[in-house]
């Protein structure tokens, strides 16, 4: 009984004007103080624990999701004030489609309503330079949600100051596979011939004719068999290999010459040029800075198919015990402080090592 009265008294006290003013001043001071140190450029949040919070507080699970949205609004305000450039949140996983239908529908409704609101406040977002992006496999969304998503993204497309990435519906493996697929597609498109006075077809034909009659035989064999060089496999393969050996002297130049007819020579970009950066550029988060901080609430210590590729090297990961609807400045502050402290230590370690190396 006394606990209930104490919490009510505490709430009354905290909502009184002097206490509110003091708290507000404290928050502003702390955020301003944090800004004096290094601030992460890209932060990722896994908004976990809405349903468990709802169950423990004996409210509906969909209420828990609404409270989770409010927590997200709080966190976004803090991140904006601190100067974080990109915030990525895990809203909905492709695995979550396995949940009961009414819950999935409730979440889709929530997303639609909130995105609609966002569209209505378009000029406010424009003033603050905030843009919203929705990452994930769009084909799994129903048409009405997709329409709202597209409108929201296109309304805020031109704002460049800070980005909110909503991963909805998203799985990191699916993102990586899509990146691989689009990289392979890019490298399977014949590169547009550059407009130099030298014709590449003429040069390649000259080189081919130098290699003697063998090339002419396989050329006729290729053009008759169409796409698949199945006839004369050894000869045509030898030809292709020798072709690539002559052209891979210059690794950046097109590497593979494939003959689809006697007149057309399609040149493919060299597959050896694919690096981790290439795949990076094909991810959904291509133009975002590298991930600095990864926060997961509700005590679960897994990645669960979120940002697997992005947080693989330097990202510091924090697993917090609180549930997502409770998350606020007082939980985020230690995370930021620890990150800043770690950055300072790294900078200090780099300096003596550089001194030793140069000495």
């Amino acid at each position, binding site marked *: 009984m006394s606990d209930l009265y104490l919490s009510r008294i505490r709430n009354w006290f905290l909502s009184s004007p002097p206490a509110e003013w003091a708290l507000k001043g404290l928050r502003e001071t702390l955020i301003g103080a944090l800004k004096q140190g290094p601030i992460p450029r890209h932060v990722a949040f896994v908004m976990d624990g809405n349903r468990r919070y709802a169950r423990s507080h004996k409210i509906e699970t969909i209420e828990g999701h609404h409270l989770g949205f409010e927590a997200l609004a709080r966190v976004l305000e803090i991140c904006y004030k601190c100067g974080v450039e990109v915030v990525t949140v895990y809203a909905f996983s492709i695995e979550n489609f396995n949940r009961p239908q009414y819950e999935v529908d409730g979440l889709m409704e929530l997303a639609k309503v909130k995105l609609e609101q966002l569209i209505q406040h378009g000029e406010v977002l424009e003033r603050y330079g905030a843009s919203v992006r929705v990452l994930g496999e769009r084909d799994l969304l129903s048409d009405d949600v997709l329409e709202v998503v597209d409108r929201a993204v296109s309304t805020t497309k031109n704002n460049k100051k800070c980005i909110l990435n909503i991963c909805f519906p998203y799985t990191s493996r*699916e993102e990586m596979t899509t990146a691989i697929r689009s990289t392979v597609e890019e490298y399977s498109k014949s590169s547009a011939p550059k407009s130099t006075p030298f014709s590449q077809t003429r040069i390649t034909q000259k080189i081919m004719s130098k290699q003697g009659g063998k090339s002419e035989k396989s050329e006729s064999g290729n053009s008759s068999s169409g796409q698949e060089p199945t006839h004369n496999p050894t000869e045509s393969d030898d030809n292709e290999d020798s072709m690539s050996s002559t052209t891979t002297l210059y690794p950046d130049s097109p590497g593979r010459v494939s003959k689809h007819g006697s007149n057309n020579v399609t040149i493919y970009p060299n*597959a050896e040029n694919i690096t*981790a950066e290439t795949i990076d550029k094909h991810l959904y988060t291509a133009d975002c800075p590298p991930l600095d901080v990864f926060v997961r609430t509700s005590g679960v210590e*897994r*990645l669960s198919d979120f940002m697997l*590729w992005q947080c*693989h090297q330097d990202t510091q990961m924090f697993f917090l015990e609180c549930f997502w609807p409770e998350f606020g400045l007082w939980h985020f502050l*230690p995370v930021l402080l620890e990150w800043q402290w770690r950055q300072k230590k790294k900078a200090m370690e780099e300096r003596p090592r550089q001194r030793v190396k140069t000495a």
Partner: protein
Amino acid sequence: MFKPRDIETYRRDEKLGHKLLTPEERIRLLKPYLPSPPLHPSEQANRRAMENEQRLGVRRLIKRHWHLLVFTIVHAIFSLYIRIRRAYHQVVNKISSVYLHHHRAPDLIYNDVKDLRRLPKHLSVILNLDEDARGGTGLAKLIEEASDIAAWCASARIPQLSIYEKTGTLKGYLPRVHRSMTQKLAAYFGPNTPGIGIRAPHCPSIETAQTLAASRIENDGLKHLSVMILSAEDGRDSIVDLTKTLADMSQRGKISTSDITIELVDAELSESVMGEPDLLLLFGPRVELVGYPPWQVRLTEISHVQDNEGVNYQVFYRGLLKYAGAQMRWGR
């Protein structure tokens, strides 16, 4: 932070499908909480804005100094807190390591874990090469740590172990690692030593004499422990290599891009590198995946002990406890 009255209004509006307040009313509701908008370049060029800046210059300077002061104080308090936390954890870890010592007895270790709800079938650890160590002592320490972990795994009857070490030093000394592990297992188990097979991706495996080992085990202990050694090139780089191969095949017309599915990539990567581990142990003070293969770590439980330095048994044991208590929901 938000006034309770405003929260109430917002929630009432939300329940009615946002029809209670018009957009303008909503913006008025939010206005006191919005931060000051950044200045547009056109406004900055405005002379009046410059004059305002000069007048507020002193105020801004004082504010900045005040913030710097608070920043220094907060960081001083924080580093004090971190030092206290580290000291506390060191004391607690020392006490629990004495209490939980394995005494090189596999039965003791198995006793610790046999009551757990579930055990990982594939355990993974990240080891760090001590780069400041002179000569070969860094490598020797790594091999010692790896052998310890292998011995604990064998005692706890975990059949598969993978060791990730970023620089790849361990990979270059597979026979030496194998010898050290066999010796350590012999020291732990005596005559009932399970067989060890060590491999690295794209390298042949080194096995102990299987027939002798298998015949000696009398009870139902672990018969064979397979160890996989990984390095940074098995992470992103192997995915890049797979992409190169797929691009090559697509250029030759052997596959089309729609054939590239998650299952294909998964099959290729688990075949050539390793499958998914159930539990990943980190022996450092913080959670950082220093290049660990990103594809495989999808649903892996990640365990670390805050402020812990170095490889010791109680991190291993606590990781297993955490794994046993973890709930997998599979998205539902």
